[in-house]
């Protein structure tokens, strides 16, 4: 049976520089997969490549369809949502407007409005700040907004880029628990890029490890997290 996302021989980079070399991944539907690696290893670049935000070479198939020649907005419209590093919220628009934009491509107006309410249920703090300018909210709140906005798409695949970055541990735990809920209740497949390897491996079922743009390890998250040697040399704990 075909995986939800199949990547084969992916090369990607900026300008003349190649950052990702010969990357191959399989993401199964309904799973949470984590992509780990040190700073500068190419994790963010991988996510950007999957959304065609940068130039790529190689095959990317989503739900069996080749998406490596499509524009970012078309990939998004096929059900791939990306929460970028830096949140990517529309700073001068309100929380409400940010969410509405998340549902921009939805044809079903009423279901979209219902989903907006559901987002406020997941993230009560956002409901309090409906009319507030997104750029004036705290990092944690903006992260929640970014996730909520991505979920408004009702995506099949959710790409998350370092959601824990710069956030207090309590908030990180909250966000990770929401990711678990989304994955279980809404059947959203998640590809999680993280520096916080420990938490990521607890949440995910599959893990990939990338180093200077190349895949060095792949396997069950539990196995990786139990392997002392791997943990010490690659994950730093």
């Amino acid at each position, binding site marked *: 049976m075909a995986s939800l996302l199949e990547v084969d021989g992916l090369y990607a980079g900026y300008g003349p520089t190649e950052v990702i070399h010969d990357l191959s991944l399989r993401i199964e539907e309904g799973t949470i997969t984590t992509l780990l690696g040190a700073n500068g290893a190419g994790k963010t670049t991988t996510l950007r490549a999957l959304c065609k935000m940068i130039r790529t070479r190689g095959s990317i198939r989503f739900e069996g369809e080749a998406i490596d020649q499509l524009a970012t907005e078309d990939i998004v419209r096929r059900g791939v*949502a990306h929460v970028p590093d830096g949140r990517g919220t529309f700073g001068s628009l309100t929380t409400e407007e940010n969410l509405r934009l998340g549902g921009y491509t939805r044809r079903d107006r009423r279901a979209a409005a219902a989903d907006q309410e559901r987002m406020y249920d997941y993230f009560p703090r956002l409901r309090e700040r409906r009319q507030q300018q997104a750029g004036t909210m705290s990092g944690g709140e903006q992260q929640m907004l970014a996730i909520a906005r991505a979920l408004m798409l009702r995506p099949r695949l959710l790409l998350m880029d370092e959601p824990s970055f710069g956030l207090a541990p309590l908030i990180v735990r909250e966000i990770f628990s929401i990711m678990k809920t989304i994955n279980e209740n809404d059947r959203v497949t998640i590809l999680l890029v993280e520096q916080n390897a420990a938490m990521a491996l607890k949440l995910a079922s599959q893990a990939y490890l990338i180093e200077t743009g190349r895949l060095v390890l792949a396997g069950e998250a539990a196995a990786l997290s139990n392997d002392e040697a791997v943990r010490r040399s690659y994950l730093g704990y």
Partner: protein
Amino acid sequence: METFIHQVVAGIATGGVYASLALALVMIYQSTHHINFAQGEIAMFATYLAWTLINAGVPYWVAFFGTILLAFALGVLIQRIIIRPVEKAPVLNVVVVFIGLLVILNSLAGWIFTYTIKSFPSPFPKEPPFGLSFISSHELGSIGVTLVLLVMLYSFFRFTPLGLAMRAAAQNPDSSRLVGIRVGWMLALGWGLAAVLGSIAGMMIAPIVFLEPNMMSGVLLYAFAAALVGGIDSPGGAVLGGFLVGILENLLGAYVIGTELKLSVALVLIVTVLTIRPAGLFGKVIVTRV
């Protein structure tokens, strides 16, 4: 005293024209960080289209709305065909393309419509409204049209999904793509709307300055000044700047320097704002990252 009020009122009327054009400039600047040097010529060309329709016997308001549609199409076409190929090019190349566009439109107008000065009708009666002495019907009508236009635009951007998407695309194209917005088409739409703004500005001012290919160069200069004074990335600022500049122009012209140096006034305004406070009254001050 009456002349003073009349000067102010006339200033508000022309200010409305400047505001519309300045708003067009700001719209394009916000979404692309380019200054549309050809904005005046697009407006001029659209006004000539209106003149052609009216001359062919089309009733004024039908021609008016027909021109708006044509201008919209023209703006979209220009963005898709001429501007898009140089979107990511260095600044000089982009400026050269805008100047090329200016020159083509100007010469096309001269070619098709000749350089003879033509008169352009006003849809408003010649007699002053309600017997008032300090305002003409055209001035009142022009102010009215401008206000309706601005209110409609504001509502569009504030309350409709498409308007929201356009605002998003202007602010943050990358994030916009991530919610599925086709940013390229948003830019084209922006150009279309800017062309519409220009066409209305042209049709409102043509009865006063008369129709000829170079009619908009002075107006454009004032629109630049207005956009800079208000803040080149602030739509509200541009509108306010337009009215301020219009009033200033008239008062200076009537009481200080006469009509001879009007363009120099615009020049001084532009250079002053750029030197002292480039962000204008309401724009954002940009800090460049190393």
